[in-house]
Every structure is written in C-alpha cells, then in structure tokens.
C-alpha cells in the first residue's frame, strides 16, 4: 500500500520540491497543486492518489480560507475514499473546518465513507446511485472499480466462502459480472451458489503464539556482569 513517505511515480520534480520545502506555504502554489490533483483524478491506477501533495493543498486552504475551492476539496476526499481502509481520508478531514464539512456535498461524501467503513456495502451502492453522489464522484476516473476492489479485499480477509447473493449485493454486480469478477480475483463459484475464496494468512483462524523478541543488546549488561565473576 502506498503511503505518504513513498514518492508516487507520477509526481514531478517540481511538485516534489514544492511539497518538501517551505515553499508549500506559499498560496501562489494553490493552482499548481489543483492542476496536479486534476491529473490524479484523470488517471486510474493503484498509486494515482498522491496523498502528500493533496494534504499540502488542503494545508494551503487551511491557511487561506478565502481561497478554498470546494470542487478541489471534493475531489481530494473522493480520491481518498478509494484508499480506505487506509487513513488518508481522516488525515484530510482534520485539515478542514466546520463550515466546509457542513456543506451539502461534503456531507454526502462523509455518508458514503461511513457506509464503507461500517461495511454496509449494499446501502453504499444505493446511496451512490443518487444524482448528487454520482455527480460528486464523476470527477474521479475509475471510482466504482477502485471501491469494488477495496470491498473485495476486505471480504477476502474475512471470508473463506460466501454466498453469491451476498457478494452480488456487496459488490453491486449481477450474476454475469460476478463471474468475470470472481475469475479476476481467483474466486471459485460452486454449483450451490457458494463462492470459495483463496485462503491466506488473514482468513485462516489460527492461534498465534506471540513469543518475545529480545535483542542481544539488551542482554549485554548481564553478560558483561557475568564475565566479571
């Protein structure tokens, strides 16, 4: 998973220098970062979200509330939605203020976020189909697919098998589409409409025994004392 410390391949030197220097406080850079945000929204790939750059943009808004561009804030948040269950979204939220998060469109995005985080996937798709929500997310390319893959990911670490009805609802796919999707994910749809998911470390209930790890350095004193005897 990408995080703020790794530099996404798409980030230019210009942006990189900007966000890693005191230049990031210069309000003249707002358009530069807004432009870069547009690039991020237009490309769909796993590392297309540059959290560090977007946080720098929100920071400039925090210091210059008269220059807040609500559309840009919406795009940053929608982009961050796709990176759940990571912490991108909440880091962005902390930089906003009461007025911004009371805006109708931001409230809608918060609703979507809550539904995803409480695993109410079927309701999520329902709310997303509303005109307002469609409008808000349309600016980000490949939004549905990235959300679908994050839901699939979470089901994958919890389930060993699930009914196909549940998966269809959770992923907002019909029977045919689910077959294609299952193939991509390596899931097997059995004849009794149960889908088996590949097993890995997370979805096996295995008792782990935590053994302590004592680095040798911590024992140097006692060994030193012993050798003096």
């Amino acid at each position: 998973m990408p995080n703020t410390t790794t530099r996404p391949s798409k980030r230019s030197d210009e942006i990189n220098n900007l966000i890693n220097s005191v230049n990031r406080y210069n309000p003249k850079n707002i358009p530069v970062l807004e432009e870069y945000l547009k690039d991020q929204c237009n490309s769909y790939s796993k590392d297309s979200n540059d959290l560090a750059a977007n946080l720098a943009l929100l920071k400039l808004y925090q210091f210059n509330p008269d220059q807040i561009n609500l559309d840009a804030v919406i795009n940053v948040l929608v982009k961050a939605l796709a990176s759940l269950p990571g912490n991108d979204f909440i880091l962005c939220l902390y930089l906003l203020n009461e007025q911004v998060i009371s805006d109708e469109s931001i409230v809608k995005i918060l609703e979507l976020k809550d539904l995803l985080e409480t695993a109410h996937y079927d309701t999520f798709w329902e709310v997303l189909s509303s005109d307002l929500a469609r409008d808000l997310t349309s600016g980000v390319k490949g939004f549905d697919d990235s959300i679908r893959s994050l839901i699939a990911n979470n089901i994958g670490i919890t389930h060993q098998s699930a009914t196909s009805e549940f998966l269809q609802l959770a992923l907002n796919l019909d029977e045919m589409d689910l077959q294609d999707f299952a193939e991509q994910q390596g899931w097997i749809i059995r004849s009794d409409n149960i889908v088996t998911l590949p097993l890995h470390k997370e979805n096996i209930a295995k008792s782990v025994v935590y053994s302590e790890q004592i680095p040798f350095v911590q024992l140097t004193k006692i060994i030193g004392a012993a050798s003096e005897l």
Partner: protein
Amino acid sequence: MYQDNYDEYAGDIDVDVVVESYTGADEYEDGDITREIQEIQLQHQLMQQKLQEQIHMGIETIPDQIRDFLLFFHRTFTQGNSGKVAHIYEYQFNKLSEKYFPKQSWPDPRFVSALVNDTGIFLILYKEMYYRHIYSKLQPTPEERVLSFENYCELFNYILNSDKPVSLELPNQWLWDIIDEFIYQFQTFCSYRNNLSRKSPQEIELLKNSANVWDTISVLNVLYSLVAKSNISQQLDVAMNGGDLVAAAGEYGSSQLYKMLGYFSLIGLLRVHCLLGDYTLALQSLENIDLGNHRALYTRVPACHVSLYYYVGFSYMMMRRYADATRVFATILNFVSRTRQYQTKSFHFDIINKKADQMYALLAMCMALSPSRVDEQIHTQLREKYGDQQNRMQRGGEEAITTFQELFMYSCPRFISPNIPNYDNLDSDDESYGEGGAQDKNKGKKFELQSFQMKIFIHEVSLQLLVPSLRSFLKLYTSMKMDKLASFLEVTPTELHNQLLVYKMRANQLKYNGGSSLLAGEYSTSTDLGFAIDTDVVYIAESKVGRKYADWFIRNSTKLLELVSTMESKA
C-alpha cells in the same frame, strides 16, 4: 535676459513664501527663542533626571538578595561559565522565584539593565525569563503578550541574522525552554485572540494593530529558519546513515547553541503541526530522530523527552494507528515511572506528571480501540487510574462515547486556528455558529476549535465500537454458527456479519517497523483474536503469549549470582 528675469521672479516668490511662513517669528525676540531652547533642554534634563531617579528608585526596590543574585548572574554569564550558568538557571532562579516572586513579576527589565549596566543579549535573555515567569505565575496583559513576542523576535534575530555563529553557550534545558515557551505563548495568544467575548474596544484595537504579532507563518518561519541554519536534518541523516558529521554540520551546526536550537525546533514543529491538526507533517518533522535510541539528544532534557513522546503518540492515535500509539505511550510511561525518584528536584516535575497522567488517558482510549498487551506495571497503573473508564468504553453504546469524549477533552492538546479572526465583522461572523446569546456564541466558537478535531475523532470511534461482549463471546468458542452467535448477542445475523467485517478491517493497521520516518509502516493485523467466516460458520482462534525466556534467564542469573557469592563467603 528672459532667463534672468525669470530667476528674479522665482526668487521673489520664494522669499515671499519664506517670509510668510515666518511671520509668526516677529512676535519673538532672539532672546526669547534661546530661552525657550534652554527651557526645553532643562525640561529634558529634568525628565532624564526623573527617569534616572525612577530607575534608581526602581533598583532600590529590588530586594538585596535579588540584586546580588542578578549581579552575580550577569558576571557569570559574561564570563561564559556555562556550568555555573546552568546551575543558576535551573536551581537558583527558580528557588528565588518561589521565595520572592510567587505572585508578582521579577524586577522590571529596565531596572535590571541599569543595575548590571548591560543592554545586550543578557537583557534579552533576562526578559525571556521575566515574561515566562509572568506567563506561568500571573495573567499576562495584552501589552505584555506583545512585548514578549517582540523580545523573542529580537532574540531570534540576534541568533539568526549574524555573519558568523554568535558565541553564546546556554544550557540545553534553557534552550529547550526557549522553544517550548515560544510555542506555548503562541498557542495561548491564538486562543486569546480567538476568544472575543468580554474584550474591551481598546483590546480589540490593540489586536487589530498588531496583526503580525504571533502570526502563525512567522512562528513557523522561526522554527524552520532555526532548523535550516543548524543543518540539523543533514546532521541527523549522517548520524543515522553514516558520513562526514563535521561537513554536514557546517559552520553554524557545529556550535552547540545552533545545533540544539535546531534540534528542539524539529520537536517544536511536531507540536505546532499537531496543534494545527496536521498529523502527517507533525510526524514528518521527526525524520531521522530515532525514538528507540537511549542516547538520543532529546533524552538530555526530560521535559523534551516526555513532550516528544506525547505528541508522537497523540498523532498516531489521531491517524488511527492505535497499535503504534500504544507502543509509544507505554514506552514513555515506563520511563516516567522509573525515573520518578530522580525527577522530584526538577521544576518540570509537575508538568511531566500532568503529561504522564494525560498519556494514561490516551493509552486507555487506544487500548479500548485496539486491545493489546502492555507492560505489567503500566497495566496496573492504568487500571488504577482509568479502570472505570476502561470498563465503560468496552461496554459500548452512548456511555462509551461520552467516556471517550471526556478522556479526549482531558488529554488532548489545545488546538489552534492559524488565522486571525475578523475583528471588524464580529456580529456577522457569529451568526454562523449555533444559536443562543452573544456570549454563548463566543464560547461556542472557542469550544469549536477543540471540538472539531474531537468531533472527527469521536465519529471515527463511533464507527468502530463493537456490539458489547462480541469479543468475549468469540473468545469462548472455536467455531460457531453465525445465526446462533447473533441470537446470543441479541443482534440480527446481518448486523453480526457487518461487525465482523468491521472488526477485520480495523484490526488491519499500519504499523511502524523501523526506519527513518515515523510515517512509514506496514499493514499488519494487530489483534489477539483471529477469525474467519466460512459461509455461515465463523471459526475463531485466540492468540496466546508464549513463555518469557528473557525474564526467566535474568531471574535465574541473579539467583545464581547470589548462590555463588554465598558459597564464596562460606568457603
């Protein structure tokens, strides 16, 4: 010809103007003017004399012991005896403060300046202590807030705008206190500035005229400049990854003053960013500061050590990295409880204890959100201090949320807004904040800053509160039908399914795994409870803690040591 005429003409006019403007002068004889000048001079002399007298009287009012102390302090300082200066700063100044000035300020800097006959850096540093004392023991007036800021500007200008490193050596404790107090005063000024209720028009006028005072950007600028001047980032990088330390430090960075100020500024940045709600930048400031190192620079000043861990832990908690926060808090609380006996003498003792208590509250929250095991001693302390709250948070529901709120309000830092409120437009500004009387609105506004960060955090918490007793039920079985488990918990099977999905999602946390950046980490499951759903059955496995070999080894080593010594004494 024409030219000449013109000149004459122009000259005439000039003369006229001059004469006109001096017409008033006719009323005075030459003697009068000289007399008047003399009078002014006399008056000036009188004023000077009066001022001298005032200062003289001022000096007279200083108690003898304090006068001797100040003279001694000044002499030691100018001699550059850093060991003695440290002693004066850490012990004598505070002892005298308690004895002579528990509820009043130290002598006026003007008197002190005249007393020691010094207007240079000593005076600036004395003022720094003078205002710090006012902030800690009294209520600073608006003027004092502004003057103290100006004094800090003078101090940092002296240090930063110098052609070559200034030859000044101050104890680490003092350097830390300078940065710490600078940020503290900034923080209090922000809340003072934003709390407009019961402010007189004069106060508002003063605030309006001093918009640059304690401006967020200038405060950040000071900290960033100190960091840049000292090359501290490069120095830390070299210290961690190898290289030429002297070359990395450069002219300024080699001096203790610049190096330590730069280092403490990094921790200052951590704090300021945290107060602004930017937890990413907060942790980024600490790049290459190794939290596991027992000999790291921050360990030299206990207050700095504790403050550093507090803000790092708090940032982690706000970032939902509860496992990391738990680890950070447990480490520092262990340190505090072990060193308590040595700390009693330090004047930071109370501050450290208060911070430690807040961190127990934070730890209680983190443990409720992401159960894990901590050191036995910390666990006992935690049960003792926040046992009730822990139970309430685990029980879930409305009560749990209230408990989270209470603990958060008690233990969070005082957040700040980076911007200046609109002093001219108070009424219309107020309208957007809730209802109620004018005072309530302002109260609400002040509260709002605290509550915005809390609101987001608490909302986050509410999303992941589990059905009470889900965990305890899961722990009882190794496999269970979903609908049966749901009926035990008195929830619908769909609800249970949701909860299990949420539990898994939350258990998967970003965890620090070494390296130079505290932001880095790996996603891993941090829970003592593993489970998986197989269509309609849930399989459960609880993790266990293995044997503690190191403990056993150390215990038996000491036993053997005792045995050997008894045998030797008998032989």
